[in-house]
């Protein structure tokens, strides 16, 4: 963290005593904010400190055994001092995590928060349109949670018309000894991304799985 960022962090900490510094931030000023104060803090950042731009919103799953398990993180930017501030809010409930939405402060949060809801399963209260954005509406899981397998879980295909014609299902992807990486080689055929262990496949099951 640069001197400038450190000064900003200390200044904000002094002005807003309800926030606490998030330890271990390597780059920008970073704060833990209580869920009931985050809208107030965001409004102050926007209107008094000049942080007019929302850059990113992410949801984070800190692990199946962690408590609190989920947090939402907003990255905001000031075009006046050219610095970032990171706002972290933990969700109190590990089963149905919920944090306040900041759409009323920065309208650009809308789709980012929907993505965090879709993939990590954090509900943003007072969000104007809390729907999934990437997966289809009926999808029952939140795929970026730590306990969700990369290959996926078998569910019905979202479109009944396609299913009627093809019988397709949403199946776990065959990992086939993945991860899939580009190997060293000279020709395109040799460098094509492939699994390192190709002894097993969909048809030829992995011996240890049975």
């Amino acid at each position, binding site marked *: 963290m640069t001197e400038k960022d450190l000064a900003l962090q200390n200044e904000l900490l002094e002005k807003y005593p309800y926030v606490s510094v998030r330890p271990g931030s390597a780059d920008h000023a970073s704060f833990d904010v209580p869920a009931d104060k985050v809208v107030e803090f965001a409004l102050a950042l926007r209107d008094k400190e000049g942080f007019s731009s929302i850059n990113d919103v992410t949801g984070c799953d800190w692990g199946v055994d962690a408590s609190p398990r989920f947090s939402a993180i907003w990255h905001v930017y000031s075009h006046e001092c050219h610095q970032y501030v990171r706002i972290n809010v933990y969700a109190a409930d590990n089963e149905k995590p919920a944090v306040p939405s900041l759409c009323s402060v920065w309208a650009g949060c809308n789709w980012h928060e929907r993505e965090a809801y879709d993939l990590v399963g954090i509900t943003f209260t007072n969000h104007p349109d809390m729907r999934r954005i*990437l*997966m*289809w509406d009926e999808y029952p*899981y939140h*795929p970026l949670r730590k306990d*969700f*397998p*990369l*290959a*996926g*879980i078998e569910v019905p*295909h*979202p*479109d009944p*018309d*396609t299913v009627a*014609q*093809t*019988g*397709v299902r*949403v*199946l*776990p*992807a*065959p*990992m*086939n000894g*993945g991860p*899939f990486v580009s190997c060293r080689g000279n020709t*395109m055929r040799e460098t*094509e*991304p492939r699994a390192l262990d190709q002894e097993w496949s969909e048809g030829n099951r992995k011996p240890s799985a049975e």
Partner: protein
Amino acid sequence: MSAANTEVAYNSKIEGGVVVTKLDAAIDWIRSHSVWPMPMGLACCAIEFMSASCSRFDISRFGMEVTRFSPRQADCMIVAGTVTYKMSQAVRRIYDQMAEPKWVIAMGACASSGGMYRSYSTLQGVDRILPVDVYISGCPTRPEALFDGLMALQKMIAKEPGLKLLKRDRPVKPLYFG
């Protein structure tokens, strides 16, 4: 020898102006050189398709260049890119909107098998929802490989019983991956 017989054996006025062939072969020849492709561009293979259709590689050298962006006017769907489960319903519907006769090319690793996207969201090969005629390797596919695939499709069309398929309803093609 009568005059009529001489005319049947040889007439210099029509010699060179008549070609004798089978109707099947004529229909197949016409079809295979007037395939109108529709790019179903979903990822980087679509960029290679754009390159293939421009002057450097020039897709029109092979008689398959009239690219249409409406399924109603196209014969060949080129699935170029990663098909997610959410997109797969749209891909299937667009295929259903194409008029017979129609063919499908799976362009690149993703469309052929899911490619490197072995994950919860990606359809592992478009042959799970469409009857694919030609698979093309590559990540992304080079324009030369695409032309090779297009010419392979032309050879396949040239072997079809074109007249039979004109007269009756085309049988629904089976999925190879059921």
